């Protein structure tokens, strides 16, 4: 660990010419220290991701595309998906952001293992099949659920089958994406600058606002993009918890799945729409951090 870090440091602080040569080599992509064999599995990996999308393009009925995409069902699903994903991403930021900061920087001295336990639970939606998450939400907030029963009898609130259920399902599955990205950025940034700010008399709140936030902005942005993309694609938790009704709970992925039952051309067109929206989110929203040029 220490040795490796020293080695890297040596490279970084190498005298002028050597350093410049290394940068130039990087720019021309000659792949310094890259074993040649790695190109082969890398190419296969790329094809595995890219070819299915190509398959969709191949299957698409381009002449019918405009009418397929402007059907009332498609427009309503697109509107619902964009709206719910935007609200869910905001909720991820409002609650997942502070949670990531607490996980990265918080100290609970009396229970050192507690943080690790909390982190494991927070990351659960990443590994859990979304449909399991949906069922879990249903058993918490459904008619006979722990919380749902109380809400229903006390306030007459019933969450399943509503747009709120869609948002809760999306927030549940997407929040860990934001937390992982942000917590990683916070750990990489370290606390040196905040310490310096404190010696200059900044309060924790001021140091957080003026030092921490600007430092982790790229990580936060990439976390938000990931969370939004995950919300747009959410299927399993939504169908299990919120059901499927046009205009209320039937988001784009749910409509794609349903359309596939009877109308393959329609399903393909909607799938491509989802691909395009996701690409826009990734390309426009991609912070420089994910390009590897910090």
């Amino acid at each position, binding site marked *: 660990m220490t040795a490796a870090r020293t080695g890297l440091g040596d490279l970084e602080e190498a005298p002028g010419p050597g350093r410049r040569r290394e940068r130039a080599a990087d720019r021309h992509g000659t792949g310094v220290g890259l074993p040649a064999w790695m190109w082969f599995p890398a190419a296969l990996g790329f094809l595995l991701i890219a070819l299915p999308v190509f398959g969709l393009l191949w299957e698409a009925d381009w002449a019918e595309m405009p009418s397929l995409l402007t059907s009332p069902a498609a427009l309503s699903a697109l509107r619902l998906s964009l709206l719910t994903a935007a609200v869910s991403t905001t909720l991820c930021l409002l609650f997942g952001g502070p949670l990531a900061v607490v996980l990265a920087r918080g100290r609970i001295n009396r229970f050192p293992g507690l943080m690790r336990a909390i982190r494991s639970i927070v990351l659960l939606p990443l590994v859990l099949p979304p449909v399991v998450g949906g069922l879990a939400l*249903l*058993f918490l907030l*459904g*008619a*006979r659920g722990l919380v749902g029963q109380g809400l229903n009898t006390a306030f007459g609130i*019933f969450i*399943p*089958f509503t747009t709120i259920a869609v948002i809760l399902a999306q927030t549940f599955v997407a929040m860990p994406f934001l937390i992982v990205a942000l917590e990683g950025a916070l750990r990489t940034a370290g606390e040196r600058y905040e310490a310096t700010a404190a010696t200059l008399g900044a309060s924790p709140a001021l140091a957080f606002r003026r030092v921490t936030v600007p430092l982790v902005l790229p990580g936060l942005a990439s976390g938000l993009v990931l969370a939004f993309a995950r919300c747009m694609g959410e299927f399993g938790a939504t*169908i299990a918890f*919120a*059901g*499927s*009704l*046009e205009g209320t*709970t*039937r988001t784009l992925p749910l409509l794609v*799945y*349903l*359309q596939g*039952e*009877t*109308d393959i051309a329609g399903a393909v067109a909607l799938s491509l729409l989802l691909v395009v929206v996701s690409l826009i989110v990734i390309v426009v929203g991609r912070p420089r951090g994910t390009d590897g040029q910090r």
Partner: protein
Amino acid sequence: MNTRSAYRAAGAVVSAAALGLLAACGGGGGDAGGEAGQGDQAQAGGPLTVFAAASLTGTFEELEREFEAANPGTDVTFNFAGSSTLAQQITQGAPADVFASADQSNMDKVTEPELTEGEPTLFATNTLQIAVAPQNPKDVTSLETLTQPDLRTVICAPQVPCGAATERVEQAAGVDIPAVSEEQDVKAVLQKVQTGNADAGLVYKTDVAASGGQVEGVDFPQASEAVNDYPIAVLKSTRNAELAQRWVEFVTGDEGKRVLEAAGFGSP
């Protein structure tokens, strides 16, 4: 020490299983059925892949046990899914010996490109029933009751067979059910009623029967307007036409009828 003996035991199990597989694969004219002393059955043995509508899961699994007992050396495996999914898989070249569909239109998708051996046979019918919580707390008595605004009803989306049937009974009754959700398949509808999140759901009689008392079924007269026919056929892609035919005869025969009727299916 313990781990090592555990490994050894696991190894023994694996090799036994491998031997079993080898023996099964050796089939054909082989010695698998030798002990039974019935030459023709040994010949007909082997693997059989049946693509069947999800609503047939319980009945076909029961029939499988009886069929395998009666035909030593056979191993029936199922692919249970929505009929449209199965029809799509078959037309895309999925290897299957028999297709049992929950409706005629999905069977047509397979017969039109002439992927079946001969004409399909109808072997069962299924009709809709209103599923409600046990003891029917909301007092649902007819389709008309489902239009009450304080009642949460879940139905199938019109794109899937149970949803198409729902549309037909709605038309026959002259009602428009304000459903809170239009699900992808009938099991999802049933689950919403079972968990108490929906007060009522339109499902098949067989689903109510299979729920083991978790939901109660309410009959309504318009159900006869949407009778689902279940056709079954041997597929051209079969590698064991004789065994496939025997399965079809078993399902359409007396034994099949008995099991299907017990599960709530009607006879065609």
